[in-house]
């Protein structure tokens, strides 16, 4: 089924077993990002120590694409120096906008999200968590 290009096994796996997922107390919430198309939203918290992203956690409800993409996002930024994390985020968002294809070397599991680009209406799902972390990092460590 053609759908498997969209819902690759790795995506279904992240959807069914999201990483760094769990309830966040409201005082911890750094970002509450909503997809107006469907009303989904995820909430997110993060911690940075010594210029390195220590932890990211999210909760909320979303479709398979947004849940999996958010889950993969956490893995892509945790333990990265903040500027490097920002680079990953920028590059992912740019590739979703269609500015450039993903670099298979660098992208790792994220490459599975390439299939989303064929479904323009789902791009917002795939970028939901990424917009949230982008803003959250800006809050924690404003970019000079």
């Amino acid at each position, binding site marked *: 089924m053609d759908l498997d290009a969209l819902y690759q096994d790795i995506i*279904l796996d992240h959807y*069914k077993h999201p990483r760094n997922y769990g309830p966040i107390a409201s005082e911890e919430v750094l970002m509450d990002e909503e997809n107006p198309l*469907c*009303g*989904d939203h995820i909430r997110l918290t993060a911690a940075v120590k010594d210029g390195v992203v220590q932890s990211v956690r999210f909760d909320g409800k979303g*479709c*398979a694409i947004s849940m999996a993409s958010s889950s993969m996002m956490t893995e892509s930024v945790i333990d990265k120096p903040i500027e490097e994390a920002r680079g990953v985020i920028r590059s992912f968002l740019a590739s979703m906008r269609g500015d450039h294809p993903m670099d298979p070397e660098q992208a790792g599991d994220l490459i599975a999200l390439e299939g989303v680009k064929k479904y323009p209406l789902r791009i917002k799902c795939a970028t939901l968590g990424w917009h949230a972390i982008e803003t959250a990092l800006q809050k924690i460590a404003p970019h000079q």
Partner: protein
Amino acid sequence: MSECCICKKCLGVTGDEGQGFDVAKIRQDFPILNRRIHQDKPLAYLDNAATTQKPSVVVCALCDYYQICNANVHRSLHLLADEATQHFEEARRRVVKFIHAHSEREVIYTRGTTESINLAAYSWGRRHIQAGDEIILTEMEHHSNLVPWQILAKERNAVLRFIPVLEDGTLDLEAYRRLLNPKVKLVGVVHISNVLGTVNPIQEIIADAHRAGALVLVDGAQSVPHMPIDVQALDCDFLAFSGHKMMAPTGVGVLYGKESVLEIMDPFMGGGEMINKVTLEGSTWADLPLKFEAGTPHISGAIGLGAAVNYLMGIGMEQVEKYEQELTHYALQKLTPIPGLKIYGRAPERSGAISFILDDVHPHDLAQFVDQAGVAIRAGHMCAQPLMRKLGVPAVSRASLYIYNLPCEIDQLVDAILEAKEYFSHGS
């Protein structure tokens, strides 16, 4: 004098209602329904509440118009312009007949339901709504019949009140009656909910409103295409609907208004056609309905709407309603037993817009999945975010039926839902 053939070929003979109903024959008029998508699966188009497909006679009316007598209306004296004007006005007369309006003066062409309601909000509302006045809407309104009134209420310091939706998807009429009071100037109510399928008892709602001295605007986007409508029997003051949801082209719709109400409204937009006399210092307005039709109208759209109305009258709206009732019944019977599937809207009087949620599968994933199985349904908030909040969900999936749909298309949907359940099941 007409040398154009739209009338003959496409507007055909009209109104021989109820000569028996043959879906197979109807489907021949919609070649798009034979499309095969995603590795050759038959298309099951179940997104009719969003927009319907168009029969060949409608598409052909457009082609004929453009290829035979395209010209601007009401303006020029030459043959093409004369033909175009006659077809354009003939279509208006068909609409008059279709909704049983009193005259052509009561039928205003718009882009669709949304513009119709905004026209009423600007031209009637700006004139009649003062600070402290109240407008009653319902919790199940489409954004189209909510946002224009919010904008007006904010501008005028008026108050919006809402008839609550009960557990089964019907309106709380007792609460409605308590809301009525002399400050209420307008009641705006959707005839059939695009989410719950509920057919609201608008005749009763209108009578109550009139007793309290309020006018009533009915959002007929989901009712006019699907059942017989008689504005004089209903006694509504306004009725708004869209052509594209009733087999007509995109970009055309209607605001019906009682002549006495339209007469004392200010114009909406200014420009050509809607004027009588223009000087640099000021202008006077044309008669109804042109007063509300500024600029070049959507001529081919109106002609297509005439052809669509004619097509529907040829089948007979009682037939349309009857067949859709049977189909809806079948669909509910098939969908209800699916484990984990929750259907929203259980009104005793309901139409073929069926919204549901499947446990643990997000509506968007579900819609995407069933699309791959050839089935077109919609997922999202359905332009009814307040109702979603009331139902406690961010979004739903919706299958919505029309007369060309078949029971086997519903089976195709049910099979796809069952597969999706399997595919997305958690913790597998």
